[in-house]
Protein backbone atom coordinates (compact mmCIF):
# COMPACT_ATOMS: atom_id res chain seq x y z
CA UNK A 1 0.00 0.00 0.00
CA UNK A 2 2.76 2.39 1.10
CA UNK A 3 4.75 1.34 -1.98
CA UNK A 4 1.79 2.23 -4.23
CA UNK A 5 1.53 5.69 -2.65
CA UNK A 6 5.27 6.19 -3.06
CA UNK A 7 5.05 5.16 -6.72
CA UNK A 8 2.14 7.54 -7.34
CA UNK A 9 3.93 10.42 -5.60
CA UNK A 10 7.04 9.78 -7.65
CA UNK A 11 5.01 9.68 -10.90
CA UNK A 12 3.29 12.97 -10.02
CA UNK A 13 6.58 14.66 -9.08
CA UNK A 14 8.36 13.46 -12.23
CA UNK A 15 5.39 14.49 -14.39
CA UNK A 16 5.43 17.94 -12.80
CA UNK A 17 9.20 18.23 -13.34
CA UNK A 18 8.69 17.45 -17.06
CA UNK A 19 5.81 19.94 -17.43
CA UNK A 20 7.44 22.76 -15.43
CA UNK A 21 10.82 22.13 -17.09
CA UNK A 22 9.37 22.30 -20.62
CA UNK A 23 7.38 25.45 -19.74
CA UNK A 24 10.47 27.14 -18.26
CA UNK A 25 12.58 26.18 -21.30
CA UNK A 26 9.93 27.60 -23.67
CA UNK A 27 9.68 30.83 -21.67
CA UNK A 28 13.46 31.14 -21.61
CA UNK A 29 13.67 30.71 -25.39
CA UNK A 30 10.99 33.36 -25.84
CA UNK A 31 12.92 35.76 -23.53
CA UNK A 32 16.20 35.07 -25.36
CA UNK A 33 14.45 35.88 -28.67
CA UNK A 34 13.65 39.37 -27.35
CA UNK A 35 17.29 39.87 -26.35
CA UNK A 36 18.65 38.89 -29.76
CA UNK A 37 19.23 41.89 -32.07
CA UNK A 38 16.93 41.93 -35.12
CA UNK A 39 18.30 40.64 -38.41
CA UNK A 40 19.90 43.31 -40.52
CA UNK A 41 18.24 43.13 -43.94
CA UNK A 42 21.33 44.69 -45.51
CA UNK A 43 23.78 42.32 -43.84
CA UNK A 44 25.89 40.08 -46.07
CA UNK A 45 24.59 36.53 -45.87
CA UNK A 46 26.82 33.59 -45.17
CA UNK A 47 27.34 31.74 -48.43
CA UNK A 48 25.95 28.24 -49.03
CA UNK A 49 28.11 25.35 -47.86
CA UNK A 50 27.34 23.23 -50.90
CA UNK A 51 27.12 24.14 -54.54
CA UNK A 52 24.49 22.54 -56.74
CA UNK A 53 26.70 19.83 -58.21
CA UNK A 54 27.97 18.65 -54.81
CA UNK A 55 24.48 18.74 -53.35
CA UNK A 56 23.21 16.62 -56.24
CA UNK A 57 26.04 14.14 -55.82
CA UNK A 58 25.45 13.57 -52.12
CA UNK A 59 21.67 13.61 -52.27
CA UNK A 60 21.55 9.99 -53.57
CA UNK A 61 17.94 9.33 -54.67
CA UNK A 62 16.63 12.24 -52.70
CA UNK A 63 17.61 15.01 -55.15
CA UNK A 64 13.98 15.92 -55.83
CA UNK A 65 13.29 16.40 -52.14
CA UNK A 66 16.53 18.36 -51.73
CA UNK A 67 15.47 20.59 -54.66
CA UNK A 68 12.14 21.23 -52.94
CA UNK A 69 14.04 22.14 -49.79
CA UNK A 70 16.24 24.68 -51.62
CA UNK A 71 13.20 26.05 -53.46
CA UNK A 72 11.33 26.61 -50.20
CA UNK A 73 14.46 28.17 -48.71
CA UNK A 74 14.55 30.61 -51.66
CA UNK A 75 10.94 31.60 -51.00
CA UNK A 76 11.56 31.97 -47.26
CA UNK A 77 14.72 33.95 -47.93
CA UNK A 78 12.96 36.46 -50.18
CA UNK A 79 9.94 36.62 -47.85
CA UNK A 80 12.18 37.28 -44.84
CA UNK A 81 14.01 40.05 -46.70
CA UNK A 82 10.72 41.69 -47.71
CA UNK A 83 9.38 41.55 -44.15
CA UNK A 84 12.59 42.97 -42.73
CA UNK A 85 12.05 46.39 -44.37
CA UNK A 86 9.14 48.64 -43.44
CA UNK A 87 8.20 49.74 -46.96
CA UNK A 88 6.39 47.58 -49.52
CA UNK A 89 8.97 46.20 -51.97
CA UNK A 90 7.75 44.67 -55.25
CA UNK A 91 9.38 41.30 -55.90
CA UNK A 92 10.73 42.42 -59.27
CA UNK A 93 12.49 45.42 -57.80
CA UNK A 94 14.47 44.23 -54.81
CA UNK A 95 17.91 45.44 -55.81
CA UNK A 96 18.28 47.52 -52.66
CA UNK A 97 17.99 44.45 -50.42
CA UNK A 98 21.13 42.37 -49.96
CA UNK A 99 20.06 39.10 -51.54
CA UNK A 100 23.38 37.51 -52.36
CA UNK A 101 22.06 34.02 -51.52
CA UNK A 102 19.12 34.06 -53.91
CA UNK A 103 21.10 33.13 -57.03
CA UNK A 104 22.99 30.23 -55.35
CA UNK A 105 19.76 28.92 -53.79
CA UNK A 106 17.88 28.93 -57.10
CA UNK A 107 20.93 27.54 -58.91
CA UNK A 108 21.21 24.68 -56.42
CA UNK A 109 17.47 23.92 -56.62
CA UNK A 110 17.62 23.75 -60.42
CA UNK A 111 20.84 21.71 -60.45
CA UNK A 112 19.27 19.18 -58.08
CA UNK A 113 16.14 18.95 -60.21
CA UNK A 114 16.69 20.49 -63.66
CA UNK A 115 13.06 19.80 -64.67
CA UNK A 116 11.70 21.87 -61.79
CA UNK A 117 10.39 24.88 -63.75
CA UNK A 118 9.15 27.18 -61.00
CA UNK A 119 12.61 28.21 -59.73
CA UNK A 120 13.50 29.30 -63.27
CA UNK A 121 10.44 31.54 -63.34
CA UNK A 122 11.40 32.95 -59.96
CA UNK A 123 14.93 33.52 -61.23
CA UNK A 124 13.54 35.39 -64.25
CA UNK A 125 11.20 37.59 -62.23
CA UNK A 126 13.00 38.25 -58.95
CA UNK A 127 16.67 37.81 -59.74
CA UNK A 128 17.26 40.43 -62.50
CA UNK A 129 17.03 43.31 -60.01
CA UNK A 130 19.65 41.54 -57.85
CA UNK A 131 22.00 39.95 -60.39
CA UNK A 132 20.86 40.04 -63.99
CA UNK A 133 23.76 37.95 -65.34
CA UNK A 134 22.93 35.13 -62.92
CA UNK A 135 19.25 35.39 -63.87
CA UNK A 136 20.16 34.96 -67.55
CA UNK A 137 22.60 32.12 -66.79
CA UNK A 138 20.10 30.15 -64.68
CA UNK A 139 17.31 30.58 -67.24
CA UNK A 140 19.65 29.54 -70.07
CA UNK A 141 20.65 26.51 -67.98
CA UNK A 142 16.94 25.68 -67.73
CA UNK A 143 16.53 25.93 -71.50
CA UNK A 144 19.49 23.61 -72.01
CA UNK A 145 17.98 21.06 -69.62
CA UNK A 146 14.39 21.47 -70.88
CA UNK A 147 14.63 22.39 -74.56
CA UNK A 148 10.91 21.78 -75.08
CA UNK A 149 9.71 24.09 -72.31
CA UNK A 150 8.55 27.20 -74.21
CA UNK A 151 7.82 28.97 -70.94
CA UNK A 152 11.55 29.23 -70.22
CA UNK A 153 11.94 31.22 -73.45
CA UNK A 154 9.14 33.45 -72.21
CA UNK A 155 11.07 33.99 -68.94
CA UNK A 156 14.35 34.68 -70.75
CA UNK A 157 12.61 37.07 -73.16
CA UNK A 158 11.15 38.85 -70.15
CA UNK A 159 14.64 39.34 -68.65
CA UNK A 160 15.97 40.78 -71.93
CA UNK A 161 12.91 43.01 -72.23
CA UNK A 162 13.51 44.34 -68.70
CA UNK A 163 17.07 45.15 -69.74
CA UNK A 164 15.68 47.01 -72.78
CA UNK A 165 17.49 44.55 -75.05
CA UNK A 166 14.49 44.25 -77.38
CA UNK A 167 16.46 42.56 -80.16
CA UNK A 168 17.55 39.69 -77.88
CA UNK A 169 14.04 39.53 -76.42
CA UNK A 170 12.51 39.26 -79.89
CA UNK A 171 14.96 36.49 -80.86
CA UNK A 172 14.21 34.59 -77.64
CA UNK A 173 10.43 34.83 -78.08
CA UNK A 174 10.93 33.76 -81.67
CA UNK A 175 12.93 30.67 -80.67
CA UNK A 176 10.31 29.79 -78.07
CA UNK A 177 7.54 30.16 -80.66
CA UNK A 178 9.17 27.40 -82.76
CA UNK A 179 8.68 24.82 -80.00
CA UNK A 180 5.76 22.46 -80.63
CA UNK A 181 2.90 23.38 -78.31
CA UNK A 182 4.02 27.00 -77.86
CA UNK A 183 1.07 29.40 -77.91
CA UNK A 184 0.54 31.71 -80.88
CA UNK A 185 1.14 34.83 -78.79
CA UNK A 186 4.84 33.90 -78.50
CA UNK A 187 5.21 34.65 -82.22
CA UNK A 188 3.18 37.84 -81.78
CA UNK A 189 5.48 38.87 -78.89
CA UNK A 190 8.48 38.42 -81.15
CA UNK A 191 6.99 40.90 -83.64
CA UNK A 192 5.96 43.33 -80.89
CA UNK A 193 9.43 43.25 -79.31
CA UNK A 194 11.11 43.91 -82.62
CA UNK A 195 8.75 46.72 -83.62
CA UNK A 196 7.83 48.41 -80.37
CA UNK A 197 9.67 46.79 -77.44
CA UNK A 198 9.57 49.77 -75.11
CA UNK A 199 5.86 50.54 -75.44
CA UNK A 200 3.23 50.19 -72.75
CA UNK A 201 1.21 47.91 -75.03
CA UNK A 202 4.11 45.43 -75.07
CA UNK A 203 4.51 45.68 -71.32
CA UNK A 204 0.77 45.09 -70.88
CA UNK A 205 0.97 42.01 -73.10
CA UNK A 206 3.94 40.61 -71.15
CA UNK A 207 2.34 41.08 -67.75
CA UNK A 208 -1.04 39.78 -68.94
CA UNK A 209 0.61 36.57 -70.18
CA UNK A 210 2.61 36.30 -66.96
CA UNK A 211 -0.52 36.76 -64.87
CA UNK A 212 -2.43 34.15 -66.87
CA UNK A 213 0.37 31.58 -67.17
CA UNK A 214 2.06 31.64 -63.78
CA UNK A 215 1.16 29.23 -61.01
CA UNK A 216 3.20 31.18 -58.47
CA UNK A 217 1.01 33.44 -56.36
CA UNK A 218 3.80 35.99 -55.79
CA UNK A 219 4.53 36.26 -59.51
CA UNK A 220 0.82 36.61 -60.33
CA UNK A 221 0.48 39.28 -57.67
CA UNK A 222 3.48 41.15 -59.09
CA UNK A 223 2.08 40.91 -62.65
CA UNK A 224 -1.31 42.13 -61.40
CA UNK A 225 0.30 45.15 -59.72
CA UNK A 226 2.30 45.92 -62.84
CA UNK A 227 -0.91 45.82 -64.92
CA UNK A 228 -2.55 48.20 -62.43
CA UNK A 229 0.53 50.42 -62.69
CA UNK A 230 0.18 50.49 -66.49
CA UNK A 231 -3.51 51.41 -66.16
CA UNK A 232 -2.52 54.10 -63.69
CA UNK A 233 0.15 55.47 -66.07
CA UNK A 234 -2.49 55.73 -68.80
CA UNK A 235 -4.86 57.44 -66.35
CA UNK A 236 -2.16 59.88 -65.21
CA UNK A 237 -1.43 60.78 -68.85
CA UNK A 238 -5.11 61.68 -69.29
CA UNK A 239 -5.13 63.65 -66.02
CA UNK A 240 -1.98 65.55 -67.03
CA UNK A 241 -3.63 66.55 -70.31
CA UNK A 242 -6.70 67.75 -68.45
CA UNK A 243 -4.54 69.72 -66.01
CA UNK A 244 -2.60 71.33 -68.86
CA UNK A 245 -5.83 72.26 -70.61
CA UNK A 246 -7.19 73.78 -67.37
CA UNK A 247 -3.93 75.70 -66.84
CA UNK A 248 -4.04 77.03 -70.39
CA UNK A 249 -7.66 78.08 -69.98
CA UNK A 250 -7.53 79.53 -66.42
CA UNK A 251 -3.91 80.58 -66.34
CA UNK A 252 -3.34 78.73 -63.05
CA UNK A 253 -3.35 75.29 -61.52
CA UNK A 254 -6.66 74.20 -59.96
CA UNK A 255 -6.86 74.62 -56.16
CA UNK A 256 -8.37 71.19 -55.79
CA UNK A 257 -9.64 68.31 -57.90
CA UNK A 258 -13.17 69.62 -57.30
CA UNK A 259 -12.62 72.28 -59.95
CA UNK A 260 -12.07 69.57 -62.56
CA UNK A 261 -14.97 67.37 -61.45
CA UNK A 262 -17.28 68.30 -64.38
CA UNK A 263 -14.51 67.49 -66.87
CA UNK A 264 -13.80 64.16 -65.13
CA UNK A 265 -17.48 63.30 -65.38
CA UNK A 266 -17.49 64.14 -69.09
CA UNK A 267 -14.46 61.98 -69.92
CA UNK A 268 -15.66 59.30 -67.44
CA UNK A 269 -12.70 59.36 -65.10
CA UNK A 270 -13.71 57.50 -61.90
CA UNK A 271 -13.89 59.97 -58.97
CA UNK A 272 -14.68 59.85 -55.24
CA UNK A 273 -17.17 61.99 -53.27
CA UNK A 274 -14.71 64.90 -53.09
CA UNK A 275 -14.27 64.88 -56.87
CA UNK A 276 -10.73 63.45 -56.74
CA UNK A 277 -9.88 60.98 -59.52
CA UNK A 278 -9.34 57.39 -58.34
CA UNK A 279 -6.48 55.14 -59.31
CA UNK A 280 -7.20 51.52 -60.43
CA UNK A 281 -7.08 50.35 -56.78
CA UNK A 282 -9.73 52.93 -55.78
CA UNK A 283 -7.38 55.33 -53.94
CA UNK A 284 -7.61 59.04 -54.90
CA UNK A 285 -4.66 60.63 -56.71
CA UNK A 286 -2.87 63.55 -55.06
CA UNK A 287 -2.67 66.94 -56.76
CA UNK A 288 0.73 68.64 -56.39
CA UNK A 289 -0.29 72.25 -56.72
CA UNK A 290 3.20 73.76 -56.84
CA UNK A 291 4.15 71.71 -59.92
CA UNK A 292 0.56 71.16 -61.07
CA UNK A 293 1.29 67.44 -61.28
CA UNK A 294 -0.76 64.36 -60.51
CA UNK A 295 0.85 61.90 -58.11
CA UNK A 296 0.11 58.50 -56.64
CA UNK A 297 -1.27 58.52 -53.11
CA UNK A 298 1.23 56.89 -50.72
CA UNK A 299 -1.65 54.68 -49.49
CA UNK A 300 -2.03 53.18 -52.97
CA UNK A 301 -0.74 49.66 -53.61
CA UNK A 302 0.39 50.62 -57.10
CA UNK A 303 4.19 50.53 -57.34
CA UNK A 304 5.82 53.92 -57.87
CA UNK A 305 8.80 52.44 -59.75
Amino acid at each position, binding site marked *: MAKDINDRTRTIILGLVVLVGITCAALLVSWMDTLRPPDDPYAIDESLYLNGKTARRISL*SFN*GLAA*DWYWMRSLQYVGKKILSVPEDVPIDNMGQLQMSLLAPLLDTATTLDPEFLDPYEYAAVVLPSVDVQEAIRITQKGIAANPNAWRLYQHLGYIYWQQHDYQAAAETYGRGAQIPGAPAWMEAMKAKMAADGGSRATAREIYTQMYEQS*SDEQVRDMAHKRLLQLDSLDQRDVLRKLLSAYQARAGRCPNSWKELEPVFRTVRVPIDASGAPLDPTGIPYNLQRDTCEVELNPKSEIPVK
Partner: protein
Amino acid sequence: METTASIAQSNTRAATRHGRFWRITAIARNAFREAVRDRVLYNLVLFVLLLTGASIFIGELSGGQERKVIVDLGLSAMLLFGVFIAIFVGVGLVYKEIERRTIYAVFSKPVGRGEFLVGKYFGLCLTLLVNVLVMAVGVSLALVYVSHGWDPLILTIWPAVLLIYMELMLLTAVALLFSSFSSPALSALLTFLVFIIGHFSADLKSLAGSLGSSSARWLFTGLYYLLPNLANYSFITPAAHGRAPSPGFVFATALYAFIYIVVVLSAATLVFSRRNFK
Protein backbone atom coordinates in the same frame (compact mmCIF):
# COMPACT_ATOMS: atom_id res chain seq x y z
CA MET B 1 10.64 -52.08 -63.44
CA GLU B 2 12.80 -49.16 -64.51
CA THR B 3 9.70 -47.12 -65.26
CA THR B 4 8.24 -47.72 -61.79
CA ALA B 5 11.53 -46.70 -60.16
CA SER B 6 11.75 -43.49 -62.15
CA ILE B 7 8.11 -42.65 -61.32
CA ALA B 8 8.79 -43.25 -57.62
CA GLN B 9 11.93 -41.11 -57.80
CA SER B 10 10.05 -38.29 -59.56
CA ASN B 11 7.25 -38.47 -56.96
CA THR B 12 9.82 -38.19 -54.16
CA ARG B 13 11.40 -35.21 -55.87
CA ALA B 14 8.01 -33.55 -56.31
CA ALA B 15 7.15 -34.20 -52.67
CA THR B 16 10.49 -32.75 -51.58
CA ARG B 17 9.94 -29.68 -53.74
CA HIS B 18 6.43 -29.35 -52.40
CA GLY B 19 7.73 -29.70 -48.83
CA ARG B 20 10.48 -27.16 -49.46
CA PHE B 21 7.92 -24.61 -50.66
CA TRP B 22 5.82 -25.05 -47.52
CA ARG B 23 8.86 -24.88 -45.24
CA ILE B 24 9.99 -21.62 -46.86
CA THR B 25 6.43 -20.26 -46.62
CA ALA B 26 6.22 -21.18 -42.94
CA ILE B 27 9.55 -19.45 -42.18
CA ALA B 28 8.52 -16.39 -44.20
CA ARG B 29 5.19 -16.19 -42.40
CA ASN B 30 6.96 -16.41 -39.04
CA ALA B 31 9.49 -13.73 -40.05
CA PHE B 32 6.60 -11.44 -41.06
CA ARG B 33 4.77 -12.11 -37.78
CA GLU B 34 7.96 -11.40 -35.84
CA ALA B 35 8.43 -8.09 -37.66
CA VAL B 36 4.85 -7.10 -36.86
CA ARG B 37 5.34 -8.16 -33.21
CA ASP B 38 8.53 -6.07 -33.11
CA ARG B 39 6.37 -3.07 -34.10
CA VAL B 40 8.29 -2.53 -37.35
CA LEU B 41 5.11 -1.30 -39.02
CA TYR B 42 4.80 1.46 -36.42
CA ASN B 43 6.88 3.59 -38.81
CA LEU B 44 3.67 3.89 -40.82
CA VAL B 45 2.21 6.08 -38.10
CA LEU B 46 5.17 8.44 -38.41
CA PHE B 47 4.80 8.38 -42.19
CA VAL B 48 1.09 9.22 -42.03
CA LEU B 49 1.80 12.09 -39.61
CA LEU B 50 4.54 13.39 -41.91
CA LEU B 51 2.31 13.29 -44.98
CA THR B 52 -0.68 14.75 -43.20
CA GLY B 53 1.43 17.62 -41.90
CA ALA B 54 2.98 18.15 -45.33
CA SER B 55 -0.42 18.10 -47.08
CA ILE B 56 -1.79 20.76 -44.75
CA PHE B 57 1.19 23.08 -44.40
CA ILE B 58 3.36 22.59 -47.49
CA GLY B 59 1.02 24.61 -49.73
CA GLU B 60 1.95 27.81 -47.92
CA LEU B 61 5.67 27.07 -47.97
CA SER B 62 6.19 25.73 -51.46
CA GLY B 63 4.71 28.50 -53.61
CA GLY B 64 2.06 26.33 -55.23
CA GLN B 65 4.26 23.27 -55.61
CA GLU B 66 2.54 21.10 -53.01
CA ARG B 67 1.83 18.22 -55.42
CA LYS B 68 5.50 17.91 -56.38
CA VAL B 69 6.60 18.22 -52.76
CA ILE B 70 4.07 15.61 -51.62
CA VAL B 71 5.39 13.11 -54.19
CA ASP B 72 9.05 13.90 -53.45
CA LEU B 73 8.51 13.76 -49.71
CA GLY B 74 6.25 10.70 -49.75
CA LEU B 75 8.43 8.58 -52.04
CA SER B 76 11.68 9.70 -50.40
CA ALA B 77 10.28 8.82 -46.96
CA MET B 78 9.12 5.49 -48.38
CA LEU B 79 12.64 4.74 -49.59
CA LEU B 80 14.33 6.00 -46.43
CA PHE B 81 12.04 4.13 -44.02
CA GLY B 82 12.30 1.05 -46.23
CA VAL B 83 16.10 1.22 -46.25
CA PHE B 84 16.17 1.47 -42.46
CA ILE B 85 13.82 -1.52 -42.13
CA ALA B 86 15.75 -3.54 -44.72
CA ILE B 87 19.05 -2.81 -42.97
CA PHE B 88 18.18 -2.93 -39.29
CA VAL B 89 15.63 -5.74 -39.46
CA GLY B 90 17.51 -7.56 -42.22
CA VAL B 91 20.79 -7.78 -40.34
CA GLY B 92 19.01 -9.15 -37.25
CA LEU B 93 17.05 -11.85 -39.03
CA VAL B 94 19.70 -14.53 -38.66
CA TYR B 95 21.59 -13.08 -35.71
CA LYS B 96 18.53 -13.07 -33.43
CA GLU B 97 17.88 -16.73 -34.13
CA ILE B 98 21.48 -17.57 -33.26
CA GLU B 99 21.48 -15.41 -30.14
CA ARG B 100 18.22 -16.88 -28.85
CA ARG B 101 19.51 -20.31 -29.84
CA THR B 102 16.24 -20.99 -31.65
CA ILE B 103 18.25 -21.75 -34.76
CA TYR B 104 19.23 -25.11 -33.22
CA ALA B 105 15.57 -26.02 -32.86
CA VAL B 106 14.95 -25.00 -36.48
CA PHE B 107 17.82 -27.02 -37.84
CA SER B 108 16.93 -30.05 -35.75
CA LYS B 109 13.94 -30.30 -38.10
CA PRO B 110 14.30 -31.11 -41.79
CA VAL B 111 14.94 -27.51 -42.80
CA GLY B 112 17.83 -26.63 -45.11
CA ARG B 113 20.11 -23.65 -44.51
CA GLY B 114 19.10 -22.19 -47.86
CA GLU B 115 15.41 -22.67 -47.10
CA PHE B 116 15.87 -20.89 -43.79
CA LEU B 117 17.59 -17.89 -45.39
CA VAL B 118 15.15 -17.65 -48.30
CA GLY B 119 12.19 -17.96 -45.91
CA LYS B 120 13.57 -15.17 -43.73
CA TYR B 121 14.21 -13.09 -46.84
CA PHE B 122 10.66 -13.44 -48.14
CA GLY B 123 9.28 -12.70 -44.68
CA LEU B 124 11.04 -9.36 -44.58
CA CYS B 125 10.12 -8.67 -48.21
CA LEU B 126 6.47 -9.23 -47.26
CA THR B 127 6.85 -6.75 -44.38
CA LEU B 128 8.38 -4.23 -46.77
CA LEU B 129 5.62 -4.86 -49.32
CA VAL B 130 2.92 -4.08 -46.75
CA ASN B 131 4.88 -1.02 -45.67
CA VAL B 132 5.40 0.26 -49.22
CA LEU B 133 1.79 -0.40 -50.28
CA VAL B 134 0.31 1.42 -47.29
CA MET B 135 2.70 4.34 -47.88
CA ALA B 136 1.87 4.51 -51.60
CA VAL B 137 -1.85 4.58 -50.77
CA GLY B 138 -1.05 7.35 -48.24
CA VAL B 139 0.76 9.41 -50.90
CA SER B 140 -2.14 8.89 -53.32
CA LEU B 141 -4.66 10.06 -50.69
CA ALA B 142 -2.49 13.08 -49.88
CA LEU B 143 -2.48 13.96 -53.61
CA VAL B 144 -6.27 13.63 -53.72
CA TYR B 145 -6.45 15.96 -50.71
CA VAL B 146 -4.17 18.68 -52.11
CA SER B 147 -5.67 18.49 -55.61
CA HIS B 148 -9.24 18.40 -54.26
CA GLY B 149 -9.96 15.32 -56.37
CA TRP B 150 -8.31 13.09 -58.93
CA ASP B 151 -4.70 13.86 -59.75
CA PRO B 152 -2.84 12.28 -62.72
CA LEU B 153 0.28 12.01 -60.55
CA ILE B 154 -1.49 9.24 -58.62
CA LEU B 155 -0.94 6.95 -61.61
CA THR B 156 2.65 7.99 -62.32
CA ILE B 157 3.90 7.35 -58.79
CA TRP B 158 3.14 3.61 -58.88
CA PRO B 159 5.96 2.60 -61.27
CA ALA B 160 8.34 4.62 -59.06
CA VAL B 161 6.94 2.78 -56.02
CA LEU B 162 7.60 -0.53 -57.79
CA LEU B 163 11.21 0.50 -58.44
CA ILE B 164 11.63 1.54 -54.79
CA TYR B 165 10.32 -1.85 -53.71
CA MET B 166 12.76 -3.63 -56.02
CA GLU B 167 15.61 -1.58 -54.56
CA LEU B 168 14.52 -2.53 -51.04
CA MET B 169 14.34 -6.22 -52.00
CA LEU B 170 17.86 -5.98 -53.36
CA LEU B 171 19.13 -4.25 -50.25
CA THR B 172 17.44 -6.81 -47.99
CA ALA B 173 19.31 -9.57 -49.82
CA VAL B 174 22.59 -7.69 -49.30
CA ALA B 175 21.82 -7.22 -45.58
CA LEU B 176 21.08 -10.92 -45.28
CA LEU B 177 24.37 -11.80 -46.99
CA PHE B 178 26.40 -9.68 -44.57
CA SER B 179 24.45 -10.94 -41.56
CA SER B 180 25.22 -14.51 -42.54
CA PHE B 181 28.86 -14.06 -41.53
CA SER B 182 29.26 -10.89 -39.45
CA SER B 183 27.83 -9.05 -36.47
CA PRO B 184 24.67 -6.94 -36.80
CA ALA B 185 26.51 -3.63 -36.33
CA LEU B 186 29.08 -4.42 -39.01
CA SER B 187 26.41 -5.85 -41.32
CA ALA B 188 24.31 -2.68 -40.94
CA LEU B 189 27.32 -0.51 -41.69
CA LEU B 190 28.34 -2.57 -44.73
CA THR B 191 24.78 -2.65 -46.10
CA PHE B 192 24.43 1.09 -45.65
CA LEU B 193 27.72 1.58 -47.50
CA VAL B 194 26.44 -0.62 -50.33
CA PHE B 195 23.30 1.55 -50.46
CA ILE B 196 25.42 4.69 -50.76
CA ILE B 197 27.94 3.27 -53.22
CA GLY B 198 25.07 1.74 -55.23
CA HIS B 199 23.82 5.25 -55.90
CA PHE B 200 27.30 6.40 -56.90
CA SER B 201 27.79 3.65 -59.48
CA ALA B 202 27.89 6.12 -62.38
CA ASP B 203 30.74 7.92 -60.59
CA LEU B 204 32.61 4.64 -60.18
CA LYS B 205 32.45 4.11 -63.93
CA SER B 206 33.58 7.63 -64.78
CA LEU B 207 36.30 7.38 -62.13
CA ALA B 208 37.53 4.16 -63.73
CA GLY B 209 37.61 5.88 -67.10
CA SER B 210 39.56 8.86 -65.83
CA LEU B 211 42.29 6.91 -63.99
CA GLY B 212 45.71 6.50 -65.53
CA SER B 213 46.72 3.31 -63.73
CA SER B 214 45.32 0.23 -65.44
CA SER B 215 45.05 -1.77 -62.18
CA ALA B 216 43.00 1.02 -60.56
CA ARG B 217 40.90 1.19 -63.69
CA TRP B 218 40.25 -2.54 -63.49
CA LEU B 219 39.42 -2.26 -59.80
CA PHE B 220 36.83 0.50 -60.24
CA THR B 221 35.37 -1.11 -63.37
CA GLY B 222 35.09 -4.36 -61.39
CA LEU B 223 33.40 -2.58 -58.51
CA TYR B 224 31.01 -0.92 -60.95
CA TYR B 225 29.83 -4.28 -62.24
CA LEU B 226 30.06 -6.10 -58.90
CA LEU B 227 28.15 -3.69 -56.68
CA PRO B 228 24.41 -3.27 -57.16
CA ASN B 229 23.55 -0.38 -59.46
CA LEU B 230 20.87 1.29 -57.37
CA ALA B 231 20.83 4.53 -59.37
CA ASN B 232 18.55 2.79 -61.90
CA TYR B 233 15.89 2.46 -59.21
CA SER B 234 15.76 6.23 -58.55
CA PHE B 235 12.66 7.43 -60.29
CA ILE B 236 11.27 9.66 -57.57
CA THR B 237 12.11 13.02 -59.16
CA PRO B 238 10.75 12.18 -62.65
CA ALA B 239 7.62 10.73 -61.00
CA ALA B 240 7.07 14.07 -59.27
CA HIS B 241 7.06 15.67 -62.73
CA GLY B 242 4.49 13.17 -63.97
CA ARG B 243 6.93 11.00 -65.91
CA ALA B 244 6.77 7.21 -65.68
CA PRO B 245 9.52 4.79 -66.73
CA SER B 246 8.98 2.76 -69.90
CA PRO B 247 7.79 -0.85 -69.48
CA GLY B 248 11.07 -2.00 -71.02
CA PHE B 249 13.06 -0.12 -68.40
CA VAL B 250 10.94 -1.55 -65.57
CA PHE B 251 11.38 -5.04 -66.99
CA ALA B 252 15.16 -4.60 -67.26
CA THR B 253 15.44 -3.32 -63.69
CA ALA B 254 13.21 -6.17 -62.45
CA LEU B 255 15.38 -8.70 -64.27
CA TYR B 256 18.55 -7.12 -62.85
CA ALA B 257 17.08 -7.19 -59.33
CA PHE B 258 16.02 -10.83 -59.75
CA ILE B 259 19.47 -11.92 -60.97
CA TYR B 260 21.28 -9.95 -58.30
CA ILE B 261 19.02 -11.25 -55.53
CA VAL B 262 19.50 -14.85 -56.70
CA VAL B 263 23.28 -14.33 -56.75
CA VAL B 264 23.40 -12.67 -53.32
CA LEU B 265 21.08 -15.19 -51.66
CA SER B 266 23.10 -18.04 -53.20
CA ALA B 267 26.29 -16.53 -51.79
CA ALA B 268 24.59 -16.05 -48.42
CA THR B 269 23.46 -19.69 -48.42
CA LEU B 270 26.97 -20.78 -49.35
CA VAL B 271 28.49 -18.86 -46.43
CA PHE B 272 25.72 -19.83 -44.04
CA SER B 273 26.01 -23.53 -44.93
CA ARG B 274 29.60 -23.54 -43.73
CA ARG B 275 28.72 -22.23 -40.29
CA ASN B 276 28.66 -24.77 -37.52
CA PHE B 277 25.43 -24.93 -35.54
CA LYS B 278 25.97 -28.38 -33.99
